């Protein structure tokens, strides 16, 4: 076992595991053929907000011009 662990140690030194972004996109190419949105929807729960749903600003309400009907006699003195 000593030799085995020694070999593992050497291997780890020369050929250590390296970080690879691929593991964070599992299934993106193989299962979803690169369709990011499809992949997201399936990896992140059902609720993936749609861009259209995102513009929470309402359209300005139609505006009306207000005119004053008042005549001089109606004004408080």
């Amino acid at each position, binding site marked *: 076992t000593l030799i085995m662990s020694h070999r593992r140690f050497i291997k780890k030194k020369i050929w250590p595991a390296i970080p*690879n972004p691929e593991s964070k*996109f599992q299934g993106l190419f193989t299962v979803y053929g690169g369709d990011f949105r499809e992949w*997201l929807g399936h990896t992140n729960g059902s609720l993936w*907000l749609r861009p259209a749903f*995102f513009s929470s600003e309402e359209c300005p309400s139609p505006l*009306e011009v*207000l005119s004053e009907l008042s005549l001089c006699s109606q004004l408080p003195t």
Partner: protein
Amino acid sequence: SGKRTPIPSSPASSSPKGLEVRFYLADTNQLEYFRDCHTTEDICVESAKRCLISPLCHNLFSLYDETNDLWYPPNHEFKITEETSLTVHYRMRFYFKNWHGTNEGQPQVWRHCISKLRGGSQNIPEGTPLLDAASLEYLFAQGQHDFQKGLAPLRSPQSEVDQHEMENECLGMAVLAITHDSMNRDIPLTTTNTNEISYKRFIPESLNRNIKQRNLLTRMRISSVFKKFLQEFKQRTVQDSNISLYDLKLKYLATLESLTWDLGSEVLEPVSLSISPDRDLCNGGYHGYYNQSQGQSKDPSPESSNDMQVQVTGTTGISWRKKPSNDAVIPKEKNKAKKKFDDKYKKEKEKAESWVVFCDFHEITHIVIKDATVTIYRQDNKRMELQLASRARARALSFVALVDGYFRLTVDAHHYLCKDVAPSSVARNTDDGCHGPICTDYAVHKLRQEGNQEGTYILRWSCTEYQFIIITVVCRELDLRESRMVTQYKNFQVEVSPSGFCLYGTETIRPTLRELLDHLAGQSLRADNIEFKLIRCCPPQPREVSNLLVVTKKQ
């Protein structure tokens, strides 16, 4: 995009003259002030306009002093003289975890939506999204900055395997950022381009330093594996499958949340912390803490002790804990010690994470700042008292402004908890009986609730423009076809400018909103063919529900 603040045009960028407000958006120039007095709130409005952030989302942002790790309260006055040399950052301060709704198991976050009030059917969404497009854009730029510069520190890895996973994730973040960057700048996605781009600028500086210490062979492998993947990603996802900038941003920010330990939370370390009147009451299971800990032995006992931490987050409110004794880092120990370490670490971590909730924002009645002491009062008369030391006053204001801001976002959009930090706009709106940027749906809903009498009206700031106030009035009109009176809601616009409050489409202008309305109330008014009077104003009520409020829990 958004890697860094724009490079100031002046060469003396280290000590700018006046006040400089920096943005994380790459193509947005800083704001500069050289004279006069300006409040944080006014500067934030100017900043929001520059970044196209809507009035609805503008209250998520504030001004941050990176050097002292301090936020300016909204009513802070910057008195700018010739000696002034100050740089602040415009940042999203108020953050609600899982606003994107993609982290399962966490409560979702919405803006209140009218269909919920009406008791709408099940398939209607519970609310509308928290952020507008420009806020999302800004948050993405800020998130990248924080990730790369270490302002959003990565969570501690739980094991060697976890650490490796986190490194993978960091490189994944780089793939998302690089792709977003090149799509945003419309750089053709050619092979040569990919070869020039390195992950180095797009991962946390700490990780980059760590990778630099590995041997040349390893670094070359990392680099080539990264490029190979980026190439495939660009080809198959971007070119063949039409990925959107929006999806990239959301994935990036959702991942950032899981990769860091405290995104959107602020932690304060007071010199002492006490909860009174009674500690036993505090542990009385009110928030379920007692049940978990099964007794008092594990209880950090906050009654006037030091070494405490107080945390504020949008979704959990105010909590406290004993400061964890050692920041758990993975030690370079031998394998046999490893399992033991992992177990110990796990326990440490559980203990460390056991924040005790003091209160939700709903439970706070008011906050008092006196000298270096902040006291938060709860509805049941319990209070939390924090003693602050360094820069006590500024830190107290920064902290209270945070709680007060969350209070307005989750409990009551139109009131404040502490006068010392209250934005002047809130006080002004209260005086005028004017609502914040509530949407038409809520205005109409409120008028109905108030009885729908002819001449009843609501004042509210526009959801989309900063300089408009809208008057929504109940009118009655004869429907000729049905020959009966029908109710209508008419919207009129008031433009706010330095010269006064001007009624849209008329010459009528008055120095204050109050004076304008007093004037109009004395008139008979006409719009289209309807005649009416302004009779009764409906001001905001305490804790009134509207689209200004964020719902953070399943109710």
